[in-house]
């Protein structure tokens, strides 16, 4: 079970197609899974970017950022993941909003795809905006184009689309008077915050998919708690999508970096091919 049946990579984003027929049958747009590469692995949440009920597979885009994602990135086709649990989280709220804008960066480029598809099916005009540092870092574009009315690009070096970020494209659209009825953003915390700030002055309903640290993913541990509008919420069961205009970004960023020190030590050693060192031995 959970065999890796296809794998490819674009820069540091790894596409992993995994055999998980039950999940493929029950998942909806916006939900995620918690995976463990091996028996000793951490449990990490990853958004499911695509699925196929015929082949019984799900597709994850894994951004290599630390120890656990590096271990996944090193798996080969034919290897099996130790655990894939899901679907978890509440599905995205999909209805006919009118015009929907989806913004994605890094793993979010893949993760916005099922929401785009579902929004289109619900009758919306769907515009996706994706960002990367350089044009060669984009992926999953053909599928995204097929699911959207329009796909816009932003790159840091200006090599494709607008020179800048997703929020620069949105701001330009809004300044031109484009009417946006609902926005969804998926990506790193900084991107989510910047995009939410861009839609705030125009009062555009904005959903952001938060990826705080999780353990069980069923609401049992509270590791993923975030402050939204002054209330504590659990990203794994109340989310992962929340109102981007109400999230306490500073707290989220601080909570996400709680284990940076431990992660850095093991990641550096492992990624340089060495043995994993003992740290903080009791």
């Amino acid at each position: 079970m959970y065999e890796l049946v296809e794998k490819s990579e674009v820069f540091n984003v790894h596409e992993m197609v995994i055999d998980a027929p039950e999940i493929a049958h029950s998942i909806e747009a916006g939900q995620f899974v918690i995976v463990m590469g091996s028996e000793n692995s951490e449990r990490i949440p990853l958004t499911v970017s695509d699925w196929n009920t015929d082949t019984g597979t799900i597709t994850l885009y894994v951004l290599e950022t630390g120890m656990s994602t590096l271990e996944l990135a090193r798996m080969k086709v034919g290897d099996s993941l130790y655990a894939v649990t899901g679907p978890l989280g509440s599905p995205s709220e999909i209805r006919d909003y009118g015009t929907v804008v989806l913004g994605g960066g890094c793993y979010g480029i893949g993760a916005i795809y099922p929401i785009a598809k579902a929004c289109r099916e619900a009758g919306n005009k769907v515009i996706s905006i994706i960002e990367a540092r350089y044009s060669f870092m984009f992926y999953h574009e053909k599928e995204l184009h097929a699911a959207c009315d329009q796909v816009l690009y932003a790159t840091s070096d200006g090599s494709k689309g607008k020179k800048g970020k997703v929020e620069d494209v949105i701001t330009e659209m809004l300044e031109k008077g484009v009417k946006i009825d609902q926005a969804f953003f998926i990506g790193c915390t900084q991107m989510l915050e910047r995009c939410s700030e861009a839609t705030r002055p125009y009062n555009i309903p904005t959903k952001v998919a938060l990826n705080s640290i999780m353990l069980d993913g069923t609401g049992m541990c509270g590791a993923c708690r975030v402050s939204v509008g002054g209330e504590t919420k659990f990203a794994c069961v109340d989310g992962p999508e929340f109102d981007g205009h109400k999230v306490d970004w500073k707290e989220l960023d601080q909570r996400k970096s709680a284990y940076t020190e431990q992660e850095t030590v093991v990641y550096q050693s492992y990624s340089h091919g060495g043995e994993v060192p003992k740290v903080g031995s009791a």
Partner: protein
Amino acid sequence: MELTAKERMAIERHGMAEQPPDLRNRNFEEVPYGYTPEEAVAEAQRCLSCKKMPCVSGCPVEVPIPEFIALVAEKKFAEAARVIKTKNVLPAVCGRVCPQETQCEGVCVRGKKDIKEAVAVGNLERFVADYERENNLAEVPEIKNKNGLKVAVIGSGPSGLTVAGDLIKLGYEVTIYEAFHRGGGVLVYGIPEFRLPKKIVESEISALEDLGVKIYYNSVIGRLHKVDDLFNVLGFNAVYIGVGAGLPIFLNIPGNNFNGVFSANEYLTRSNLMKSYLFPQYRTPMIIGKKVAVLGGGNVAMDSARTAIRLGAEKVTIVYRRAREQMPARAAEAHHAEEEKIEFRLLSSPVEIFGNDEGWVTGMKCQRYELGEPDESGRQRPVPIEDSFFEFDCDQVLVSIGGEANPLITKTTPDMKTNKWGYIETDDWGRTSKKLVYAGGDIVTGAATVISAMGAGRMAAKAIHEDLMKESDETVTPDWW
């Protein structure tokens, strides 16, 4: 050789040899070593086999205690284990984690004057279960007459394992759905290795698998399959819900979300299930606090405090709103915690958690309490004392003040009744308001004990069997049931 009552009375209670506190506070190995066979026999001889058998009625699952103890006295340890197992499928677990002082031992006639004089029922139960397991003496019952009926059990904690064990022996096809990647529920994610070695839970689960119970891991019911799908799509004839309580509560005070503030659930799950005490070989990291504050006075608070000491904390303080005598923790746990130099700040409750600009916890402010009039539970109500605030430094806070009902299943099963707190409503036999759906354990009662969850599982198994028999002529009840 039969002993007289007087001779039995003259034998003093045998404690279990334990790792000394200054050794065990640096490792995760079990604290008591267990009885030798000689100690077990001598302890068993203390039992007066009294006619009233208050211990049996003191046990939530009515283990025939004097009967198994008499067998221990005759050195018939495997037979003793079999006697316990007629009522309790997890004796190695219960011998270790039951609050015996409020159950069997609490009503033992020998403990009337001093509870410390009661027959050590828990120790004996642990001994016979360990003896049976270590010597591979467990009998695998032959299951005849498979009845072709399928039962889904949601959750592999103490109640789910009990239901599965009972029903597989009655000829049902039993499938357990477990949300985590390992089975055992609270026995593996919650209770630490030094109190309940995980190999015991693994052995209980593999015994069930040997009987034919199927376990699907990584399966969150309510998300992967809804309860209705278990019937309509997957063809189960009955469903048992034993998913445990669920969501942790945090105090409604400022500073809850600073880094370093953990629910006890998270802290213990990291350490126990994910083995972060073996980081980095196991990849789940842990924050190692130097000065750790633990909020609460139950077993989970004790487990958290004692885990913190073992992970390398310099000082661990339990902050509890009531007095020492009112702590809900098992007596042995509170005693072990004290021996391990864990400080108790009683009659105190936090009003604020402090943190620095980087978002890390730095200390807390508490208010002192005194005991007032008794409340509904009969315990004296703690009343805050005005202007009695004090502050202390800490770099980690472990919140262990209970939980609330997990809504994943109840929200997706709208035709099943819950009470105002979100727990599932059942009759005395675990029947919910939804036909052929049963529930037991913490998701019905709120946080309680392993043994009460097992008791609920036993009752529900009977109800499932009774109800399915009515539905099907095929079902046959074996003689032993």
